[in-house]
Structures are given as structure tokens and as C-alpha cells.
């Protein structure tokens, strides 16, 4: 797996939609013939994948949750790498 650079800008892949599941209140990713239920970390990251870079997303989350920057950066990279491998996000 290739490391995700700080300058990369993650976006939802083509055909993938992020929305709330009214039955559970949780966020889900919808794509052709597939549904992924997101944990809170993934959800918070994905709603910030709006053109920002990875390091901007990490900083925004650190401010919001008053969390440790280094630990958060690891979480964000791992989550994004997992989503990228499943082709649910693209990095530009």
C-alpha cells in the first residue's frame, strides 16, 4: 500500500454517495450494488473531503476534537488508505 501524502486531496470516487441512513442515523457510502456503513471516524473524515488536503483535514479535526495531531494523522491516513483500496475515494 502506498503511503498517503499530506498534500493529497481526497474526494469520493465517481459514483459514490455519502448520506445519512435514516433507519440508524449513521452515515453510509452508497455505490453501485454496495453499501458501507461508516464508523464515526470515517464519517468525520469524509464530510471534510471537499477539496481540502490531508493535512488540512487533520488540522480541522484536531481543532474540532482537541485531539493529538500525530495520533490523529495516523488515524486519518489509515482510514483513507482503507477507503482508497476499496476504490471509494480518489486522491488527486
Amino acid at each position, binding site marked *: 500500500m502506498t503511503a498517503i501524502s499530506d498534500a493529497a486531496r481526497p474526494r469520493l470516487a465517481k459514483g459514490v454517495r455519502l*448520506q445519512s441512513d435514516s433507519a440508524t442515523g449513521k452515515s453510509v457510502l452508497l455505490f*453501485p*450494488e454496495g453499501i458501507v456503513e461508516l464508523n464515526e471516524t470515517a464519517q468525520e473524515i469524509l464530510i471534510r473531503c471537499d477539496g481540502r488536503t490531508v493535512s488540512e483535514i487533520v488540522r480541522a479535526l484536531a481543532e474540532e476534537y482537541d485531539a493529538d495531531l500525530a495520533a490523529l494523522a495516523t488515524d486519518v491516513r489509515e482510514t483513507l488508505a482503507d477507503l482508497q483500496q476499496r476504490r471509494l475515494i480518489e486522491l488527486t
Partner: protein
Amino acid sequence: MTAPRPYALLAEITYRCPLHCPYCSNPAVESAVLSGEHARQPSNALRTAHATASNGELTTDEWSRVIREAAALGVLQIGFSGGEPVARRDLADLVRAAREANLYTNLITSGIGLDDERVRALREAGLDSVQLSFQSDQSDLSDEIAGARAHQHKLDIAAKIRAAGIPLNLNFVIHRRNIDRLAQMIELTEALGAERVELANVQFYGWAFLNRVALFPTREQVIRAREIATAAKARLAGKIDIFYVLPDYYETRPKPCLNGWGQRYLTVNPVGDVLPCPTASSAIPDLRFENVRTCALDWIWRESESFNRFRGTEWMPEPCRSCPQREIDFGGCRCQAALITGNAANTDPVCEFSPNRARVDAVLHEVNSVSDHAHDWTYRVNPKVLHC
């Protein structure tokens, strides 16, 4: 038995189709079938065929209501299928209704009937993705399989869908006559710029069950195809998702059909019958299905006999009942059990522990001992108005 929430609705909005593929999973009924005993007690499939032909299809308003009821039940995705769903002029209206209900919308189409204008209308209605079917990679063979001139139009329409910015997935139904061209089908997928391709060996229901011997690939063909698909998967990783589906008769354990009966999926057919599985109406004649014109979808999903008959594990016979796999494969496919053993409550005969496995092996033996494919197939025909 408590019902879980469903995730996906397959909306079979019409059984009309301009193609005649001999592997269609639609009910295989012809007017000739309706005679004698059948004429007095028409089966679900015949009743549906008759109603479809006499334009008993659900209206735009009825479908819009079904879509809202499905969303309220928890459904997140809808697949518009058929028949050929494009044959309905109100398709874009139905897509819009589904998007208003916050559903992810997928169109499963042959492409026939689509043009610039209709692709644009679908995009404007909010269509999320298109699954375009191909019969093979070459015109001659493709058109022979489809029983119609269609291949060139499909190539054109794939480009239009791409140009409109709608995500494109391809589907090739694989069988004895085209399986040796798997590598070329993958090349076509690359050339058309699709994001995902299903190379799905034909599953034997509907017309495909009728044409089983003519369609069944040999063991040698299947092994070679799997090698090609595996290599292509590695080569195109990160670029195109490739799904290769084996014909399950060659497996020793059954597929986890539908992820369990009445667990995640429901199908509504053109006349409004609600089915746990699209092939159930023709494969399981003794099951009675409820209709959205007379019952609420919520009640049908939770309470009806048809959705509860094989829900969970209580219905299971041995060897399923005491099998450690029972929550993994759910006893396999009810339709396959019905078609091959005559009883939908039997273990899927694909399972090596099924007392009926010999029936599957007999088909494989026949398929693998015929040296050439001399068998003709019967082309699918549209439901006709039936005369009793």
C-alpha cells in the same frame, strides 16, 4: 420471526424487451404453455406474463408510492431492471421519484432505446449509475446471442453515458458460446472506460434453466476463464473492478443466495407482485406472493407468508439444520432447490452434503461429455396475451 430492514429494492418495471437472450432470468413462459391444467390454475409466472402483456404494469404513480414505501422501510438503493426498463417512457420520472426518496439509483439496461436525449433526461433526474449489458465483444456473436442487432448501438450508448458523466459499469453474461472470449471482453471494458465489470457466468433460472445444456460451459472453459479473470484483476487493480462469478454447479458449497431469504433484498415485478427474489415467481410455483396494489409494502416485508417461509434457520431440513455453515450460506438458493429437486425447502443441491447433489453432477457429466456444443437454444420471447 422479527424482520430485519431491507437495503435494496429491485424494481422490475417491465418484462418487455427488444432482445431475446436465451439466458434471461425472467419467467420463461410462452402462450403455448397455457393449456390443460395450467389454463385452469395459472401459476404466478403465467398470471404475471398475462397481466404484463395486457398492460397491467404498475403506473408511474403506483411505482412512486412503492418507492416511498420502500425508502420508509429502510431501503437505500434501487435497481431499475426488467425486461428492458428503458422500454418505459416514464423511466426518468421514476428515477426522480427515487432520488427524492434519497435512494441510490442504478439503471440495469441493454442500452436499447437510449439516445442522447434520454441519457440527458436520466442524468438530470439524478441517475447515479448505469450497468450496461453486453453479450460479447464482437458484433456477430453478440447479435446472434441477443437475437437482435444491438452490439453497435451498445458501443455508441456506452460513449454517450460516459460523455454525460454517469458512472458506467459493464455486465457480460458468460456461457459456453462466449466464455472463450473473456480476455477480449476485458479489453472492451478498458476501451469503453468503464469503472467496473461483472463477468457473471449464467445462473440457471428462467430461460437459462430451459437452455441449460446449450449454455453450460465445460470445466476446462471455466478453469481457463478464472485464470484470465484473476490475471486481469491483478493487472487492472485500482483502475477497473473486476467481478468474476463462477457457475455455481461447479462449486461444492452453495452461494449465500440473497444473504438469506427476506434479509436484505426485495423485488417488485412489473405487475406489483413483491418477491423475495426475482426468480421466485417462476421457480417456486406453490408460493403465493402479495401485491402492492392490495397490501402495504411494510406488511408484505414483515408479515407475509412468502417473505417468512424461508426467513432465518427454522425452516431448514438436515443437513442444513445442524450445519456450522447455516448462517454463512443460509442453505443456498431456494429457487435452485425448487428447480432441481422439486422442493424449495430442500438444501441447495449444489452443496456436497445435499442428498440431491447427484442431480447436479449428472448435468455436469452431460455437459462435459458432449464434445461440441451441438445444442440449440430457445430464444426468449416477450410475454404474449394468452388465449385459453
